[in-house]
């Protein structure tokens, strides 16, 4: 009797955590996703009281739309660019600030983290000023080395403006992942490196054979997180800096969703793009997890 009561109390205790969480999850995740799927099958302006059911026509239309394909390409360009850029620089800083003891490490750690406490909107505006062809910092800096004033329109070339969105996106992300990797590196026992030193291993050797394997879980999480936040969140930096232009050259799925749903009054089509983002995010997560699968190294 007592055992049953204890079991019941335990179950009640577990349920008191699980059920509210599940309810919130259903309300704030499952329901919007289901609603988005539902809207994607309608021809709806987003303002009218009536919606016309059109089945999968929005999806058919979507795949015929060249801007959708360009948006997908731009999204994955940013995913790859950000993963490479952020991981290389964040790892570099994390190692530099932990493995090489110097007095200013705390200062630099704070400095590199600053972009993370700034709103992405502010970062976008800031970099718009940096890229301004007439009064921007970048052209002013380059002009120091040239006879004539440099007036490059950094965000004005339809072929490569998307490249210009990488630096602010990377700059904005480094700090967070740097802190994550610093925490992981600091958990590695110093004795591992001491033993490696005694064995005569170089710093590079120590990095590849000790640091990377032991922080791989954190690196994997970082890569997955960069991928997901990019596919779902590039909208902000794109919208602030270029609004998908010029001539749709920097359109990503999120910005095109917004453009179609709220500027061109095709809410159903926008919802279909939302479904596309969901599906691509899921597929990419699965693929990346498989690619990044690595034997876990346990610290003793």
């Amino acid at each position: 009797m007592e055992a049953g009561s204890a079991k019941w109390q335990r179950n009640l205790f577990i349920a008191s955590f699980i059920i509210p969480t599940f309810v919130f999850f259903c309300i704030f995740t499952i329901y919007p996703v289901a609603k988005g799927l539902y809207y994607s099958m309608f021809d709806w302006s987003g303002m009218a009281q009536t919606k016309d059911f059109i089945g999968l026509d929005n999806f058919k239309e979507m795949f015929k739309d060249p801007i959708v394909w360009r948006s997908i390409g731009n999204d994955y360009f940013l995913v790859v660019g950000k993963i490479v850029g952020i991981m290389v620089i964040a790892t570099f800083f994390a190692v530099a600030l932990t493995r090489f003891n110097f007095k200013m490490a705390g200062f630099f750690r704070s400095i590199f983290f600053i972009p993370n406490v700034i709103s992405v909107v502010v970062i976008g505006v800031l970099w718009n000023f940096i890229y301004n062809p007439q009064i921007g910092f970048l052209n002013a800096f380059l002009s120091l080395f040239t006879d004539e004033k440099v007036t490059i329109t950094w965000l004005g070339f339809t072929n490569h403006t998307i490249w210009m969105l990488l630096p602010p996106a990377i700059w904005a992300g480094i700090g967070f992942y740097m802190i994550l990797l610093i925490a992981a590196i600091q958990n590695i026992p110093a004795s591992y490196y001491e033993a490696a030193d005694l064995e005569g291993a170089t710093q590079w050797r120590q990095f590849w054979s000790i640091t990377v394997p032991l922080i791989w879980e954190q690196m994997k999480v970082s890569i997955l997180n960069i991928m997901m936040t990019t596919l779902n969140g590039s909208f902000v930096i794109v919208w602030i800096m270029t609004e998908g232009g010029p001539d749709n050259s920097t359109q990503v799925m999120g910005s095109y969703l917004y453009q179609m749903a709220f500027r061109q009054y095709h809410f159903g089509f926008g919802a279909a793009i939302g479904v596309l983002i969901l599906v691509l995010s899921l597929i990419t997560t699965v693929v990346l997890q498989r690619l990044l699968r690595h034997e876990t190294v346990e610290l003793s």
Partner: protein
Amino acid sequence: MMNKKKYAAMGAAVLLASVSLAGCGSKDNNSNNTASTNNASTNNASTNNGGSTNATNDGSTNGGTNATTPDTPKLTGDFEVQYFVGGYGDKWWTKVIADFQAANPDLHVKALGGPKINEQNKPRWIGGNPPDFVYIDGPELNDRQMVEDGQLEDLTDWIKDAKNVDGDKILDMLAQQPQQFDGKIYNIPLVLNSWGIFWNKALFKEKGWQEPQDFQQFLDVSDKIKAAGTTPFIHTGKYPYYINGAFLYPAIVSANNGDYTVLQDMAANKVEAFESDAVKTALGKIVTLRDKGFIDKASIQINHTDSQMLFLQNKDAFIPNGLWLPNEMSKDIPQGFDFGFIPSITQDAGQKIVANTSTATVAIAKNAKNKDAAHAFLQFVFSKAQASQWAELSGAPSNIKGDISASNAPSFVKDAAKYLTDPNTIVIPTITFNADVDKAMQDATDALTIGKIDPAGWVKRVTDVVKKVAK
């Protein structure tokens, strides 16, 4: 600064009065959607001060008296007004709603205003529970889309004979007539503005540059400007509707011998209108600017504020914009800067100047619960007293004709008034394009300015979208 704003408001009012005559300029163009109108009514509007004098002195009393005349049922219940707060502020809305409330004490008027009100109230429109009265301005509200969505009350029959609280026929009061959608009227222009080209008169005087009156003069002076080391022309590439509204559309009308029905045909998604020689000729003028190196390369990536700042710094000589520009940049205008304005620079020598107007409108929700109050409010806002108040409190031209002169207007408003009152000016009534077509035109114009496509490419791109939309 206060005086400056006051003068701007008064100047805008002068402009209003003058636009009534401008409507005559467009009358010759045989449009179904005519920009008005009626000399008799114009004269009445400017000379009949009967109702408006009292209203100016005591708008609320006058409004109240008229709004609740014995033969009019007393207004009761709730009445909701949705208004977007943007560049024109909300002082006028606050005042007019307070006046209307005072005039109708048994009515409970609710003001739903703010810069995000269009988004905030969207669920109500979708749910069939919209506010009774709406001011269509700002993002996420498009009059054409609202009409297509069946959200607006058909005002066609009502407006034909509707009179304002002063007893004046509303249609006769309007400088800019309502846009028609398939021959029907759903919304009425409240604010009137004009697109055009600005320059700095002081700079031109100092440099000895001639202020252009036609396209050839514009090209000639631009050659001199460029030779002097200044970029002749900057626009807002991030929002290409500026160059479309102030340069391309007037150019299309000029190339169509002053007949603006070509634009109305474009708005009606008629493919042949986009393929007309007028459109190609107009696009060729953008190509001329591009190929002569007159367009500031920075244009393609910057927004309106950045382009306006560069213009105010005299880094660029001409900018396509709307009459709101000086008010919008009032805090950043350098000492001695003197705005010159012409509604269009794309006409050939001897051709009429073309003024492409820009309006913000008001409408009644089809599902409004208090339509009587909504109609009464329309009658209330389209009075001379409210026109005067609008000019004073928003610093922008209203669409209501009336002599509220006192001409200490800024010079650019006088310039605008001079052009708009000239019988040689063609006034294009405000036209709203389908959102997809509009976006396609904007993208294509940007692409044209940077040499990515040619005029044929522009037409091909846009007509592809038009065909899709027209299906």
